[in-house]
């Protein structure tokens, strides 16, 4: 194995070096902010949490893997070159290992080394105005490991003598699927496990292909299983892609549908608005009075120009702030998109729950702020001196009159703080009653008052930093659970009234039936009104059913329509015909493919089940995996015969005897002359 290892290194080190230089240049240009990177990627700090940077790394890893895997194998797949490679006193497995280990070294130089250097640079204090945590390297490491999946996939592609337009590229599709899964994973452990599984499956498949490029049946069982999984994943990608294309096409033809929604305007009136596409058709308030449009065109602009600033506090499950996936920046810290005027950047770090500042010129850490105040960099803050947001973090820029810089609302147990970063001050703005628990907070968006709302379970505190007053209102609830609310402060009233529009505990007010309550500035209820829920027609795609019937596995379609009844119901004769046609096509295709491959009855049953449970993907898998060289037409009777058996099962045995005639010469070697007699 060692000679192969060194030979591979010797053969390809230049390629890896060239790759290293190219990738290092990419990393360098990114970190130095060289112009060609799109501006929206250039957040204030070029650190590892930038998704674009992670994508760059993942793409580099994939390309390096693809090129290396292909280069190491493809030039040697020519028949005689392959024979020269494999006909040696070395087992195929050792040969494969030698190549793969060398490939690993080359890949490390190409993809990992530049990244590691970049990480080292980023981690060095004074280079990047952002914190550095070890957990930040996990996405990069996992993506680099995933590049190995592409390495093996490319190897398989090079080894397997299949059709390019057929299943030859499917392993690459399988790794793309894996990469997609990795990009959506939320925990590092989950992603690492997924990556490990993917790389292992593809690695085993590559090993099996190395063992036996052509005859699947003679590969080790584990490798065969991995091969089936790989091709199935690839086939699934193709089917999904096809379905998506069909859906997009069907959507193109969809007519614009109308929908109705509620909107609160700045004068506190709730309007019911009907739109179609980008056209606003009409708007009525709850008493049926229409909105006084002044023109025919530009209605949307006119109507939406003056919305009421409101705070949204929703308790529905979908709005719960998800913990940021391990790739996302908000898993590590939360920041405001623009720096303050003093050339500083302030962020809230999740690791220690303090507000940290960085100087943008020196890129150094300034210090951090906790509830007890500012601690300069280098000094260790007290252990308990941190905020406790319970996921309720609100970090917004306010631009409030009279309060330069930005402020934030930071809940901490039963207190709410505001941080003024320029002066490094912390101010407690609210202390809750002992029986209240801090549920959620929300800034009033769309206004300049810097107001925010705190929901404490039984009460709603509306706090404006401008005048320091605290308006407390009862929190609407249904049973024991508080309702989701939208709180607004309208301007048109001389005194400015406060509007609380509430829905249900699990549904925001604009999606459910609710109540609209008007309060005056002192907290007295002025009016209360019930708001009915709007039912919009469901947005099903015009051909959604047809596409589903054709692409989903027949068993699922059948079961869904028998048990569910609603979506895929067979009352429609057209749908039923389509389903039967699809099923017939699938079965015929399966039968023809199996017939040609000469499979035994047990295998046939397995494949029919696969097609019933896998649908089109099952047929694709069969296409890719079948052995189409197993049968051939018999020269005598013309029917397909299994080549493995000595005689054609359809012909009489005598027809198979090969013709011998009198011109054949078979004789054995006579004894060699005795060489001992002649020296």
């Amino acid at each position: 194995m060692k000679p192969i290892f060194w030979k591979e290194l010797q053969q390809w080190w230049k390629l890896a070096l060239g790759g290293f230089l190219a990738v290092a240049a990419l990393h360098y240009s990114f970190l130095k902010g060289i112009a060609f990177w799109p501006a929206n990627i250039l957040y204030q700090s070029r650190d590892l949490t930038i998704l674009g940077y992670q994508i760059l790394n993942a793409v580099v890893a994939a390309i390096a893997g693809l090129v290396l895997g292909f280069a190491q194998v493809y030039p040697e797949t020519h028949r005689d070159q392959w024979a020269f490679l494999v006909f040696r006193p070395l087992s195929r497995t050792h040969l494969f290992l030698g190549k793969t280990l060398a490939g690993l070294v080359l890949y490390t130089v190409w993809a990992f080394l530049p990244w590691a250097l970049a990480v080292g640079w980023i981690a060095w204090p004074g280079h990047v105005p952002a914190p550095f945590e070890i957990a930040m390297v996990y996405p990069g490491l996992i993506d680099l490991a995933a590049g190995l999946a592409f390495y093996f996939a490319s190897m398989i592609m090079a080894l397997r003598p299949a059709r390019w337009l057929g299943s030859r590229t499917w392993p690459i599709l399988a790794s793309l699927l894996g990469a997609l899964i990795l990009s959506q994973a939320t925990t590092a452990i989950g992603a690492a496990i997924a990556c490990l599984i993917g790389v292992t499956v593809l690695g085993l498949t590559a090993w099996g292909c190395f063992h036996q490029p052509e005859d699947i049946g003679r590969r080790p069982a584990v490798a065969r299983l991995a091969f089936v999984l790989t091709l199935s994943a690839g086939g699934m990608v193709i089917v999904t892609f096809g379905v998506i294309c069909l859906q997009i096409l069907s959507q193109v033809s969809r007519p614009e549908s109308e929908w109705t929604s509620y909107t609160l305007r700045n004068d506190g009136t709730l309007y019911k608005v009907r739109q179609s596409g980008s056209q606003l058709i009409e708007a009525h308030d709850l008493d049926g009075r229409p909105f006084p449009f002044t023109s025919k065109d530009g209605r949307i602009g006119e109507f939406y120009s003056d919305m009421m600033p409101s705070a949204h506090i929703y308790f529905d499950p979908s709005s719960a702030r998800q913990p940021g996936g391990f790739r996302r920046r908000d898993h590590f810290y939360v920041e405001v998109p623009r720096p303050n005027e003093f050339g500083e950047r302030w962020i809230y770090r999740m690791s220690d729950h303090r507000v940290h500042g960085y100087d943008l010129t020196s890129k150094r850490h300034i210090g951090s702020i906790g509830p007890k105040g500012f601690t300069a960099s280098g000094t260790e803050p007290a252990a308990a001196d941190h905020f406790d947001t319970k996921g309720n973090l609100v970090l917004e820029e306010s631009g409030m009159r009279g309060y330069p810089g930005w402020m934030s609302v930071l809940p901490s147990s039963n207190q709410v703080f505001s941080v003024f970063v320029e002066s490094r001050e912390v101010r407690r703005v609210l202390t809750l009653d002992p029986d209240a628990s801090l549920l959620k907070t929300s800034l009033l968006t769309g206004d300049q008052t810097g107001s925010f709302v705190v929901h404490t379970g039984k009460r709603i505190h509306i706090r404006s930093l401008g005048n320091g007053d605290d308006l407390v209102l009862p929190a609407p609830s249904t049973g024991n659970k508080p309702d989701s609310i939208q709180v607004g402060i309208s301007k048109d009233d001389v005194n400015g009234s406060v509007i609380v529009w509430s829905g249900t505990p699990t549904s925001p007010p604009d999606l459910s039936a609710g109540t609209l309550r008007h309060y005056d500035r002192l907290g007295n209820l002025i009016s209360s009104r019930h708001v009915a829920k709007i039912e919009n027609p469901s947005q099903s795609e015009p051909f959604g059913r047809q596409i589903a019937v054709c692409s989903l596995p027949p068993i699922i379609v059948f079961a869904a329509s028998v048990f569910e009844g609603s979506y895929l119901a067979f009352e429609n004769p057209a749908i039923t015909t389509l389903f039967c046609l699809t099923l017939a096509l699938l079965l015929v295709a399966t039968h023809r493919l199996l017939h040609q491959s000469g499979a035994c009855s047990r295998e046939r049953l397995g494949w029919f089940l696969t097609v019933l449970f896998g649908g089109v993907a099952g047929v694709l898998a069969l296409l890719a995996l079948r052995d189409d060289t197993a049968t051939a037409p018999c020269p005598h009777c013309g029917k397909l015969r299994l080549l493995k058996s000595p005689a054609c099962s359809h012909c009489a045995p005598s027809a198979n005897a090969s013709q011998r005639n009198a011109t054949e010469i078979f004789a054995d070697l006579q004894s060699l002359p005795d060489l001992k007699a002649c020296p």
Partner: protein
Amino acid sequence: MNADHVIETQDLTRYYNGKCVVDSLNLQVPRGCVFGFLGRNGSGKTTTIRMLLGLVQPTRGSSALFGTDSTQLTPALRARVGYLTEEHRVNMWMTVQENGHFQSQFYPQWNVKVFQSILDHFRLKPDAKAKDLSRGERAGLALALTLAPEPELMIMDDPALGLDPVARRALVESMLYITRRQDRTILFSTHILSDVERVADHIAILDQSVLRVRCPLEVFRERVRRYLVRFPGTPPDLSTVPGVLQSSRSNQDVRVTCVEKDQSVIQALRSYHPTSIEEVQLGLEEAFISYLGDRGDRPAFLSDN
């Protein structure tokens, strides 16, 4: 499986795209012999060789090297077999010397003197890059790489392909060098019959995927004969006589090429009452061409009428 047979096949068959390229091959190659594997292009020789080496799976049947099935060859067994590919493949990006160094690491029994002497024979410089070598030079390198481990069995697929006469002579000499030790066996496929004449003990001929000859070279030469048969009048069609390969008629005589065993053909010819039957001496190439050419009664190629 006879232990004395270095190579043995049993009904070895291979199909490609539904077409049979090797049909029920039964072959035995005894130890120590030089076995010439002959046949027209596309008759299945390369496929057979690949199956013998375990590089290609047979559709049916089996083959064995040193008594072990070809699909189960262990690395230790492969160490005893040298394979020279048709295109004389080596590591093209390495130099001559690097190729030798690389190859030598796999074989503990690498003989540097043999390697060097073949290189010298073909006048190869150690620093020359393999991709810059001419076909003949590369063949010399490939030959050196396969011969240096002194394999017990040497399998060569059309080794003289693309070689000039000088290189071919060097190749033949190298082959004969191997045979100096009596336990070494060579199986080689070729079209160059003068080389076969020089070196082969045994030959086998594949005719369109079917094995039709497997015998010592001398037996083949003895049995394939040509007779000039003179008739008083118009000569009859003699191509249907059993054993006749070809016949070609002109005004009063017929040239009959046949496979003779125990005088049966000449007896059959006498029954047509010819004026005379004269044996025409055949060289090996002529005999071979007649054996594999079109059977039956043939007019002269591109005749005037």
